[in-house]
């Protein structure tokens, strides 16, 4: 088949594009480091003996020009060496070990949030499109509008206060690894996932509702009715798939935003994830660590988006044809 012969070239092309995006993003990042209003030398290399000064400057790469600095940085980054937390005397903890501890927690949080948001939004979106303009639809959309207009940290604090502290149904804060206790792990994740997920549900439901309404007008839906299929079957087997491309794309874009942006919720619920590390790096002026974190978020963003591209291609073969594969 035609699609198969071109797919390898396609994948390679796609990978080349991804590499370019990652390189461009990280290069800009390292330029930004040089453009900071504080000189890095004044920040990290003051009050030291001359000997230590020179060593520190060399270790941080401050003696190189921006381009050469970037190449060295990239080489280290690719090998998994993300630099160190800079201490005045040198020799802080490696950033990689921070990432190793923080990233899995954030990824868990983000995945649970997405699964929860999609699991609720898909039936809700279909239902409100199916009942478009009727009472159910209005009820769902007012409810979601209200939920979405509460900022997630307010939601988080309220949940922690009411469900966690007052009712004591769930722990108001803290993270328990799966290896320790699966049940406690899930219990600890419920409130942060709700706080991050509820505003997402609102936007996902709206997106899906719009696309489902458009799909319901298609001839093939009328034809499915004329085949004698039930409404439920038509909605889930004929309508959902062609309507889900916008939703999937939005979910992919949210991945990156969630990885870097769960900072506040991580702080509210004391989850030592990547968001928390990014916060520490900003307030502690650990710009080299920050560069590594942001670069990782950029890589994650690109990876998730290409994964979703593949999924979208499977879900809706029309998009594959349009790309000429």
């Amino acid at each position, binding site marked *: 088949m035609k699609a198969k012969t071109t797919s390898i070239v396609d994948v390679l092309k796609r990978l080349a594009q991804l590499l370019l995006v990652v390189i461009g993003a990280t290069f800009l990042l390292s330029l930004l480091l040089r453009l900071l209003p504080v000189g890095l030398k004044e920040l990290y290399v003051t009050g030291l003996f001359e000997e230590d000064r020179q060593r520190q400057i060399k270790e941080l790469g401050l003696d190189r020009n921006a381009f050469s600095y970037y190449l060295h940085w990239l080489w280290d980054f690719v090998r998994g060496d993300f630099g160190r937390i800079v201490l005045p005397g040198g020799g802080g903890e490696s950033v990689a070990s921070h990432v190793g501890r923080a990233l899995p927690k954030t990824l868990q949080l983000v995945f649970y949030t997405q699964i929860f948001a999609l699991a609720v939004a898909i039936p809700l979106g279909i239902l409100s499109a199916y009942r478009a303009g009727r009472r159910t639809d209005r009820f769902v959309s007012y409810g979601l509008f209200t939920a979405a207009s509460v900022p997630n940290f307010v939601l988080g604090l309220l949940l922690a206060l009411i469900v966690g502290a007052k009712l004591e149904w769930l722990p108001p804060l803290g993270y328990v690894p799966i290896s320790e206790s699966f049940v406690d792990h899930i219990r600890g994740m419920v409130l942060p996932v709700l706080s991050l997920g509820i505003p997402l549900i609102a936007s996902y439901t709206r997106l899906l509702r719009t696309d489902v309404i458009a799909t319901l007008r298609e001839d093939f839906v*009328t034809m499915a009715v004329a085949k004698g299929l039930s409404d439920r079957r038509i909605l889930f087997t004929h309508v959902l798939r062609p309507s889900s491309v916008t939703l999937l794309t939005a979910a992919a874009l949210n991945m990156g935003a969630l990885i870097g942006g769960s900072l506040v919720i991580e702080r509210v619920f004391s989850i030592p994830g990547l968001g928390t590390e990014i916060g520490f790096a900003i307030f502690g002026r650990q710009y080299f660590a920050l560069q590594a974190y942001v670069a990782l978020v950029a890589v994650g963003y690109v990876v998730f988006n290409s994964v979703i591209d593949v999924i979208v291609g499977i879900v809706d073969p029309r998009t594959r044809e349009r790309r000429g594969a």
Partner: protein
Amino acid sequence: MRGVDIDVQAASSMGIVGESGSGKTVMCRAAMGLLRGGNVRSSGSVVFDGDEIGNLPSADVRKYFGTGMAMIFQDPMTALNPVRRIGSQLAESLVIRLGMNKKAARDRAAELLALVRIPDPEATLRKFPGQLSGGMRQRVVIATAIACKPKLLFADEPTTALDVTVQAQILELLSDLRRDLNMAMALVTHDLGVVANHTDYVTVLYAGLVVEQAPTTKLFTSMRMPYTEALLKSIPRLDQPSGGRMPMIGGRLPDPTNPEPGCPFAPRCPYVQDRCRSEVPPLTTAADGHVYRCFYPIGGHG
């Protein structure tokens, strides 16, 4: 639409003609209860095989779909789900409506594709609609419609969206299938040539009204309604010298939301009389069964 009374006899073929906007498609969909939405108001009765189905809830009417009634849509480019393979769309109704298991349904789907004369049915089962041409897609739509051996098939302009070269093949196929499966068929079209070749009876619609109804051969030899005559005259003919003006019907269809008194065709009728402008003529049945809606039919009242 109003005053539409159409009776399709078992195993016969009824042509439904009329110009764009005369209500052909609406009639088909109304008969199958496929008109949905807030601005649909309907009354009347639909009787299928002795059962009144016009006022049943949608879910109950669907029990008749596939096995009792089926429909072929106008545009094969939009009638198939673009994200699902042909095989799964075709086998679906076999599994759901006839309770076949997946394997049997798949084999039957391949047989159906062969029945509608698609070369290499096995490969086609695995394709997406986007990989097929319009003619091939319409064959798939037909295969889907006849999958559960319906007694009555609505064909809503099945060839309008197709290339001229494919049109004849599809119509031929429909006629053959109808004979082999002993189905009744309501063929909607605006092409009188198609009606002449493929139907036993004809209903002519104008502005949502039945204006003439007769066995096909009779309609072409002795039409009563001036509108039918005008339709026939507006077919381009090869035996006339080229370069002349194409005969056409002057004026346009009346606004269906704001009907004026009198016969809807009166403003465009060459034989119009005063009475036609004030009263809607009733449907008249002549002694030979020829039904028409005209005060002053061509050839006089039969």
